């Protein structure tokens, strides 16, 4: 806005000293911001608004823009009655429980050990990190072979241990989501460790030395110094992993397509299926808004938790 006004005035007052250094700086500033602002407005703000509009319509995409029919709250009513949405929501929550708290605790312990108690620190950093940078799809391909119900090395190993009926992992509705949670936790642990190690390097050694003089043992130092001082890091990991777990999509799309029997379907996978497989653009938009509402709620709730200082 300011740019166009500025250039208009420039032509009007040509000759006069309009381009003061401050104005020039402001113009350059807005020009430098322009690509990012335009991109963000278009792909986020406008897109979100448009998806809200679509969520009140009935539209199959193929019939063109003229085929958009207003449908009132129909999609949202359907949302409440749709059993696969409830299942997806339930699965998302289960997936969150499996992939957030436990990996955070394991990563915290491993990060502390790697940070101060081992030789070859760099080796460990790298090894735990390799799965994280590797393509999750390639990783999924490897694990889907490892998890093969009868021939896979994991079940062969379990049978060797005397377990005659090992889980069928990805092909059994009872275990499919657990198998996926194992894969993503395994692949993501290195990231969590790295973030914790960054947090640990910010804790001053003097605190530990002072505690040692007071006779504190390793466990006490961990609980009284390390854990409390890492609280901001834990908070950051908790909120981002929580949100991330509600956005899980690619590994599910590749490995199970939500199956078997919707046992691993999740919200985003429902958006994908309704929108890009069934072309129910209106309904898919309503599910999109469900996702946005969930993530908004999580953000608000965790933020409040932090202000109450319970984190």
């Amino acid at each position: 806005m300011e740019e166009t006004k500025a250039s208009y005035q420039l032509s009007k007052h040509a000759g006069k000293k309009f381009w003061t250094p401050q104005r020039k700086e402001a113009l350059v500033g807005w020009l430098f911001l322009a690509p990012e602002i335009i991109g963000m407005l278009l792909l986020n703000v406008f897109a979100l608004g448009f998806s809200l509009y679509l969520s009140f319509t009935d539209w199959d995409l193929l019939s063109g823009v003229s085929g958009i029919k207003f449908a009132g709250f129909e999609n949202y009513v359907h949302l409440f009655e749709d059993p696969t949405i409830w299942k997806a929501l339930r699965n998302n929550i289960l997936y969150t429980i499996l992939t957030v708290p436990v990996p955070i605790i394991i990563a915290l312990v491993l990060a502390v050990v790697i940070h101060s108690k081992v030789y070859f620190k760099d080796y460990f950093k790298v090894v735990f990190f390799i799965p994280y940078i590797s393509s999750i799809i390639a990783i999924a391909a490897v694990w889907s072979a490892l998890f093969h119900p009868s021939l896979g090395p994991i079940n062969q190993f379990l049978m060797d241990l005397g377990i005659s009926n090992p889980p069928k992992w990805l092909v059994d509705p009872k275990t499919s989501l657990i198998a996926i949670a194992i894969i993503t936790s395994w692949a993501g642990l290195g990231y969590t460790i790295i973030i914790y190690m960054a947090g640990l390097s910010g804790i001053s050694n003097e605190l530990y030395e002072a505690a040692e003089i007071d006779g504190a043992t390793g466990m006490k130092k961990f609980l009284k110094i390390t854990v409390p001082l890492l609280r901001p890091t834990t908070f950051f990991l908790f909120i981002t992993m929580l949100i991330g777990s509600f956005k899980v999509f690619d590994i599910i799309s590749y490995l199970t397509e939500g199956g078997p029997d919707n046992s691993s379907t999740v919200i985003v996978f429902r958006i994908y299926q309704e929108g890009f497989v069934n072309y129910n653009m209106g309904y898919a938009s309503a599910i999109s808004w469900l996702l946005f509402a969930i993530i908004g709620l999580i953000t608000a709730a965790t933020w409040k938790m932090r202000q109450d200082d319970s984190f």
Partner: protein
Amino acid sequence: MQSLRKNISKIIATVFMGALSIFFIIPLLWMVSSAFKFEKDVMRFPIEWIPSSINVVNNFKAVWMNKVPFAQIYFNSFKVAIIVTVVSLIVSTMAAYAFTKLKFRGRNFVFAILLSLMIIPDQATLIPRFMLIRWMGLYDTHAAIILMSMFSIYFTFMLRQFMAGINDEYLEAARIDGAGQIRTFTSIMIPLCRPVIATVAIIKFIWSWNDYQNPLIFLQTKSLYTIPLGMTLFRDDYTTNDAIMMMAALSAIIPLLIVFVVLQRQVIDGIALGGVKG
């Protein structure tokens, strides 16, 4: 005495962690070893870590020289990842420069708005994005994926943090010497930011290489696929031949492993700098 005890506990911890770390590479070692095997040997148990008979050439041929155009897919991945990295760096460094070193009304307000947009999940806007791309006539082109990945508040934020630490005197000196804003940006700011730009570039490259969702939504033609989506072609065609699947998986991550091994410090620092995918 004290230090001896410390050393012993350190050795024990190292051995323990060493054992644990094996869990994190075993699936990948299994992938490498399987990529060398005949199909019938892949699932043999106990696992033959060093294959007794080797079929690596045929597996390689099946992945790279067969009806699935893997070489083409590989090339696509490089092309898209490189363009995405360059374009998004240009967009983000320019914005970060404006946010830190150019003074004008409204910049902090805009920054606050942009940050708050980070809570909008990508997938909540997928349907309108898809329509936009179709309306622009970019459906089923690489341009669609590039457009979807070139704006990142997250990278702008990282670059802004770094630029904020650069002393304004450098820039003022350039200005006194008569350099304009754009000149100051390209010949003073960019070189000063080289370390953080390199880090951001590597991370962006890795994420773009691994992106599955955007190609899945915006591409249809198989010869345009990038690697993660290309993996689905192998899954569908060779669902029973695990040796070929493992060769494909290995091929998919080799460039990442090379980047990582050569530049591990930058990769790790880049992730630690702030973390989440934007």
